[in-house]
């Protein structure tokens, strides 16, 4: 055999039984049912073993940052909705808090409390979708139907306060777009009562299902040091056992006044930092979110929901600011540079999914091809946010 026909020596993990196969390039995406959007990854395989993978992003690059510096500060908020369209409230919140910090705006207390409620409800809705689609990725259709049934209840609540099912544009610079209608808080309380027992149902249905554990445990192990170096945040980082949550470490709104736990991965059914741990952090966070909503509901004062200083045209003072909040997917940061005019010089969105996704190559190294889908699902990214 001539030297150029011989396959190069492999210093990589082998298939069981050391079966030598030819290396192959396999393209997954951008249109693939399990890539959660238009994500493409080129996988180099040896038989069924993934030797290398190269993510390609940008198929949904919608020019958020160019638009953000071309329109007024107020008009950027609807575009932040469309970054992480599963957690639009949290995106609005992150952007508004950043500009408010730059301007030194004081927000009425009712608005602050309502913001906490909508942010936590949106966290539940986002995790529900992650839960449902992750079940689908592993071959279970039923959890998806259950998750969407309960998610509809949250969307109904959002529809009552702002009229939209997705892309709410509810949190505005200086407060909220509108006050919550009467009895809305009662409906939220009723929802939490309805929803909390459902989480046990989910655990029984999927989390502790033997087949699911076989599929998710010990797969895609992400060590904490790698996660930190690659800038992972949110459930991806906490799944590796690092207790890091902006709501605890640098509290914004009134998160320092409520009691809640930060669930982390414990390696209960497999190795610490595997797909199951990341998945389980999300399920447990839904419980914590319910806990937070309950506490906030106890004290929602009456009053205005918009700061009187917030005008139609905002001109923040010259300067630059970086501020971040805990999104369902991790730390969402906004870096705003202002030169004192009505348009920003630069608005950079540090999206959590962008950093979380970049670690995929590290995790997927040496796994089986079928597990690739499980790993992609466990990172739970939204392409709107990755590509912006």
């Amino acid at each position: 055999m001539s030297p150029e026909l011989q396959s190069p020596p492999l210093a990589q993990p082998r298939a069981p039984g050391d079966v030598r196969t030819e290396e192959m390039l396999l393209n997954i995406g951008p249109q693939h049912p399990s890539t959660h959007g238009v994500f493409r990854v080129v996988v180099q395989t040896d038989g069924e073993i993934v030797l290398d993978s190269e993510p390609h992003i940008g198929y949904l690059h919608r020019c958020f940052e160019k638009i953000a510096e071309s329109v007024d500060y107020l008009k950027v908020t609807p575009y932040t909705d469309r970054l992480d369209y599963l957690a639009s409230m949290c995106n609005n919140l992150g952007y508004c808090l950043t500009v408010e910090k730059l301007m030194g705006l004081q927000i009425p207390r009712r608005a602050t409390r309502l913001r906490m409620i909508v942010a936590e409800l949106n966290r539940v809705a986002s995790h529900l979708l992650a839960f449902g689609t992750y079940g689908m990725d592993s071959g279970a259709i039923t959890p998806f139907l259950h998750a969407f049934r309960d998610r509809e209840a949250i969307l109904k609540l959002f529809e009552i306060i702002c009229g939209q099912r997705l892309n709410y544009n509810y949190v505005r610079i200086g407060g909220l777009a509108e006050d919550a209608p009467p009895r809305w808080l009662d409906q939220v309380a009723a929802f939490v009562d309805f929803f909390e027992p459902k989480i046990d149902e989910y655990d029984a249905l999927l989390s502790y299902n033997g087949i699911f554990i076989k599929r998710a445990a010990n797969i895609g192990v992400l060590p904490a040091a790698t996660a930190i170096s690659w800038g992972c945040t949110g459930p991806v980082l906490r799944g590796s056992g690092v207790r890091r949550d902006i709501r605890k470490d640098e509290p914004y709104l009134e998160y320092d006044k409520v009691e809640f736990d930060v669930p982390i991965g414990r390696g209960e059914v497999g190795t610490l930092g595997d797909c199951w741990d990341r998945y389980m952090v999300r399920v447990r966070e839904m419980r914590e979110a319910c806990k937070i909503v309950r506490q906030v509901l106890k004290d929602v004062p009456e009053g205005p929901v918009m700061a009187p200083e917030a005008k139609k045209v905002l001109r923040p003072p010259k300067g630059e600011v970086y501020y971040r909040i805990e999104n369902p997917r991790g730390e969402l940061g906004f870096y705003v540079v202002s030169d004192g005019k009505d348009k920003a010089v630069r608005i950079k969105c540090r999206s959590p999914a962008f950093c979380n996704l970049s670690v995929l190559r590290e995790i997927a190294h040496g796994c089986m091809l079928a597990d690739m889908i499980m790993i992609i699902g466990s990172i739970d990214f939204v392409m709107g946010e990755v590509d912006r």
Partner: protein
Amino acid sequence: MPPTAPPVNPANQNQDLLTKDTILLTTVEDFVNWCRRSSVWPLTFGLACCAIEMMAVGATKFDIDRFGSGPFRGTPRQADLMIVAGTVTHKMAPRVKRLYDQMAEPKYVIAMGACTIGGGPYWKYGYHVVKGVDLVIPVDVHVVGCPPRPEALLEGVFKIQDLMKREKLLDRLRTYHKRETYKGAGNAAMPAPGTPGR
């Protein structure tokens, strides 16, 4: 003693069937169209925010299966209907075109949401956004909204079913004609087969 059915005279059997309305007379074309519109298979093709509403249409509350359009297929070769749900970017446009080309005739396209119809909120400053998927592939039904409600998408599917009802069995010119008109756009951006990295 249980009652027994009266004996059937074999000579009268066909006549009975006719009088009892158990045989329907129709044209082949109507029959085929009825079959076609009763099982519309959409392509699982989510691009952005609208894809979440498309998932909601397939899920519990809205349940597209009620209207004979259930199974979302993973491959374009098994799909009749492409729901372009979300913003089409310049990087994605050749892919959309290729997926459309891979679908079997007769094929239908729904443009779902403002971005797909004409760029939506990304119209003015979105340098990387295609200003409407019409520039790449022919569209049958436009569904407005940002994102459209699931009910709106269902209505779009009904409109597609209406189109299917009027389909002429021996006249495939409709789709071919559409394809001819759209030959130019998007083709130049098609990556050559096997090109890595594109």
